[in-house]
């Protein structure tokens, strides 16, 4: 197995906020190109990689789509006051941890990126009742160190602001950084494609790096419509055990991946994943998703006449913060499990997907 760490570090060292995924899309396309037979981009910018299966003939080739969203949460400039930049969120940002975060302001007036830090206003400048505890996003501001004049010359309302925390390799085989949600899954899908180079598989595989999952599921809605796979899998992050989150809704880091169960998941796909995991001895845990899954699967399932979907997740601590934390082992496991699942698909698998 090749070392995925350099690639993972490279894709969590660039921006690529929802709606503006190009910087990370370029890296992913470059990495996937030698691993697939065809590669292209959708009208909205999702990456479609096709690795052809061994089934002969052109008509009705069965295909499995594996979706990993590549977009990142982040911030957007709403107004500038005395050189300080106020922002709103793109996607769900946990504002409690933002003060002190290094950021990059993608300043379009000067077409140059500006370094900044998220600053907290002093207590006496906050409205009554706002000065204690975590400060709401609308009161936080970004300091670029530039004079008000300079900031106004360079920064536009609507400019993006991305997290600029460096990836950190941690003890215990963990990595921390921004946007591991969901680029850790992109790395896992890359491992899957690498594994499939030496494995025979009957089904076509669509590797999808989707756009705008964090805001509208825009990439999965549209790419699934265009590609019309037979079945579809979302690989995303789930909540990892840690301080204050040790109940059944969180899963231990480094102890394997989770298999979703619930209305977003076709029970037959869950069953097959479980069988494959047991056979190849990859540890998995069932994850109850009693409502929707909050992954691309929710959109893919409802596309066209409906598509059987599956949700596989990698446990992660500090979701939607600039210091998300994942065990590398789990990324490897997710990639291998996907490859083994794909290889397990027999030509008539879809006929076995039947409700009792």
């Amino acid at each position, binding site marked *: 197995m090749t070392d995925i760490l350099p690639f993972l570090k490279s894709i969590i060292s660039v921006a690529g906020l929802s*709606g503006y995924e190009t910087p990370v899309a370029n890296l992913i396309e470059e990495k996937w190109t030698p691993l697939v037979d065809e590669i292209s981009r959708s009208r*909205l910018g999702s990456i479609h990689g096709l690795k052809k299966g061994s089934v002969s003939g052109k008509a009705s080739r069965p295909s499995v789509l594996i979706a990993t969203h590549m977009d990142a949460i982040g911030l957007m400039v709403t107004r500038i006051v005395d050189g300080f930049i106020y922002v709103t969120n793109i996607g769900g940002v946990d504002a409690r941890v933002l003060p002190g975060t290094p950021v990059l302001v993608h300043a379009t007036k000067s077409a140059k990126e500006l370094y900044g830090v998220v600053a907290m206003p002093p207590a006496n400048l906050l409205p009554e009742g706002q000065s204690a505890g975590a400060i709401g996003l609308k009161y936080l501001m970004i300091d670029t160190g530039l004079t008000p004049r300079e900031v106004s010359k360079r920064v536009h309302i609507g400019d993006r602001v991305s997290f600029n925390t460096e990836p950190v390799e941690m003890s215990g085989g963990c990595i921390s950084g921004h946007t591991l949600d969901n680029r850790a899954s992109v790395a896992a899908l890359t491992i899957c494609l690498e594994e499939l180079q030496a494995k025979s598989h009957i089904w076509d595989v669509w590797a999808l790096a989707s756009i705008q999952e964090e805001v509208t599921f825009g990439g999965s809605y549209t790419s699934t419509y265009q590609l019309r796979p037979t079945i579809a899998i979302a690989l995303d992050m789930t909540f990892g055990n840690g301080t204050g989150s040790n109940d059944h809704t969180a899963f231990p880091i480094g102890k394997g991946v989770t298999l979703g169960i619930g209305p977003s998941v076709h029970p037959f796909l869950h069953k097959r994943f479980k069988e494959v995991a047991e056979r190849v001895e990859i540890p998995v845990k069932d994850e109850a998703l009693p409502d929707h899954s909050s992954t691309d699967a929710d959109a893919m399932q409802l596309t066209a006449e409906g598509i059987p979907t599956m949700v596989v997740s990698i446990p992660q601590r500090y979701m939607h913060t600039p210091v998300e934390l994942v065990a590398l082992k789990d990324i490897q496991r997710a990639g291998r499990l996907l490859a083994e699942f794909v290889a397990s698909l027999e030509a008539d698998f879809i006929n076995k997907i039947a409700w009792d």
Partner: protein
Amino acid sequence: MKQLLKTLTETFSPSGYEDEIRKVILNEVKSLADEVRVDALGNLIVRKKPIKGTKSPKKIMIAAHMDEIGLMVTHVDDNGFVRFTGIGGVYPRNLVGGHVRFANGVSGVIGLEPTSSPSDVPALNKMFVDVGATSKKNCPVKTGDVAGFERSFLDLGDRLVAKSMDDRIGCLVAIEALRALKSTPHDVYFVFTTQEEVGTHGAQTSAYGIDPDLGFSIDVTSWGDTPGQKDFEVALGKGPAIKIRDGGMLSDPRIVDWMIRTAEKAKIPYQREVLLGGTTDARAMQLVRGGVPVGCVSIPCRYVHTPAEMVDFNDVKNAVKLIGLMLKNSVSI
């Protein structure tokens, strides 16, 4: 233009009941278009074909919704008081003292059950329409009937006030842009959509049917320039707003660039819009089929979703100019 806006805004058309406004708009556009049709959801689709000989013209969809928020009767009580629910984003505090008209022409006023303090605003289910009836029997409306708000158009010079400026102002801009568009290299579809206020339904189905290459909506946006309004840098009179994002959509950066380049080249004033809540037809268009690059030209509008929505006439004229130029010239996206 103001006369047409008066007619448009004073026409009755709550979501799902757009017949009257469709007739008004159809009458205005039929002589300007190459093709006009009404689809299954009632969207009015107005096509302007490309100049003959244009190689692979782009299909561009422009959506302006013609529906408005309103009320629907849930039941009539024994004393003839009409209980109702909202169609679209109807906020109780905007209803107090309101005057409504039902599709059958019956008018009524909105009354409230008493509250513990005169400054409290009750929920919708503590309000009723008084149509002057005294019993269920002599009440001229029944469960399921639909009402629109009544308010006459007000011309304050540059500033114009009306009910349903959201989004009759978008309809006006679309009509005037079509009127001014003598020829185009694009295959242009102006769509006057239905049911935007209840979930962008008309845009979703018409975009599926048209399958455009790119598109945008024309709709109102919020405002930040009256006392106490905060955190929104859009003002009336400073030009149409080019939407970068709203509560439901991130505009495609290529469409934003196209709008800004066009505005700057023609020295049309514009504002950059970062709206935190709400969305437009463009969201539905973006997610249709394999995905469509979209954006939105917004008309800044004060007091949105009240019966007194205010826009600036210069913003309206500049929006017409901007859209006219975008459609006149070729674009590569």
